[in-house]
């Protein structure tokens, strides 16, 4: 490659790199001056970047650098974080598991406190709860039920494997005093 062509390529890549937006041929010429066959130079530059992690692309007559599409996972790597469910969420989940399909007012009646919108979202995000159609009753409220993912996570063959009230009583889980730190349901809103 000639020295002039090399210098033209260097100028082009610097200008495109530092630009705030993709540049058209006119803007490129204004920055690097008349350099002969600009489209041909841009093609050469794009070729030289093709195998790299940064590539030169044309979009509607404008040129810009971007990262190679196959490397996107390095720019947004995922990380797994273990999160604890809030007590409100665990309770809501248990009510759905024992009573499904169940509507939100029913969950609230059983728990004795209102269910905040975030609680059901978290359970659906966890993949344990799904909307399960509407109840054919006044207001047609949405019903909720558990998912196969719920059974898998808790190692249950089916919902029938959940201990019944009698089992809970026998296991002492019904007679326990409520935990000391249990917030009083003043005003009826959880947490």
């Amino acid at each position, binding site marked *: 490659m000639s020295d002039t062509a090399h210098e033209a390529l260097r100028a082009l890549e*610097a200008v495109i*790199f*530092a*630009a*705030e*937006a993709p540049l058209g041929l006119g803007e490129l010429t204004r920055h690097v001056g008349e350099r002969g066959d600009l489209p041909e130079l841009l093609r050469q530059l794009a070729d030289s970047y093709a195998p790299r992690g940064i590539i030169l692309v044309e979009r509607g007559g404008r040129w810009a650098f971007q*990262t190679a599409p196959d490397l996107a996972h390095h*720019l*947004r*790597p*995922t*990380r*797994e*974080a*273990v*999160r*604890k*469910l809030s*007590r409100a969420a*665990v*309770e809501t*989940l*248990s*009510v759905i*598991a*024992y009573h499904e399909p169940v509507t939100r007012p029913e969950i609230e009646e*059983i*728990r*004795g406190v209102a269910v905040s919108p975030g609680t059901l979202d*978290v359970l659906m*995000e*966890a993949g*344990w709860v799904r909307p399960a159609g509407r109840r054919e009753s006044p207001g047609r409220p949405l019903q909720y039920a558990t998912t196969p993912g719920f059974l898998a*996570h*808790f*190692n*249950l063959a089916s919902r029938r494997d*959940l*201990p019944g*009230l009698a089992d*809970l009583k026998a*296991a002492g*889980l*019904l*007679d*326990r*005093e*409520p*935990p000391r730190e*249990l917030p009083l349901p003043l005003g009826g809103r959880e947490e």
Partner: protein
Amino acid sequence: MTEPFEDGPPRAEAPPSLVLQLGSWEGPLDLLLQLARTQKVDLAQISILALVEQYLAFIRDARALSLELAADYLVMAAWLAYLKSALLLPPEPDADPDPAEMALKLQFQLQRLGAMRDAGQKLLARPQLGWDSFRRAAPEGLSTETLSRFDTSLFDLISAYGNIQARAQHGVHVVRRRPVMALDEAIERLERLLGASLDWAELVRYLPRDLADESYARSVLASSFVATLELVRQGRAEVSQGAAFAPILIRGRA
């Protein structure tokens, strides 16, 4: 050139030879450094005695011209005058502080300030980001996406349900219905009965008779009295009482 003021007002005579630019020095050390550099030798080889002479001469000239000198210039002048006399005296072995050492330290300070001043200029002469080289104007940015994995055991689940049930058992509180006549009911009833009668009549005549439940009878009386007041307020009834605790009379208004 006969007009005396043609070229502007008369000027004071130019100061002798030394050009005084007070205010352009950043303190006495800065002035000393500028004077030292006029010696045109390496600061490590500077003649402190000559430098002291220059400084004192400068201060003398400034005072002769009645220029106002900041106090620290004068303090430095006094100190340097002391240093000068100490340097000129025959060396005294026990002198404290040792004048030669004081001169060395002054030299060190001038060298250090000179070095920092040069370094600043060299820094500014370097290629600078945003002027000589450029970064990307709008990088996409990196981020890390967090996938949540929820950690809840079957025990957590069933004990939570147990807690709800336990709460329900402990917490049931039923308010027993008390026998009352609601205000709405009393208004509706009184309005119906009054509509037929435009004659004064005692309020008690309009109340249901044979009420076995004492507390219900009191509720009926209270609600009906309030209902009376409400109908009077609406202009649909009139109320009258002859004296305190006398029977209350009401009649309807057409």
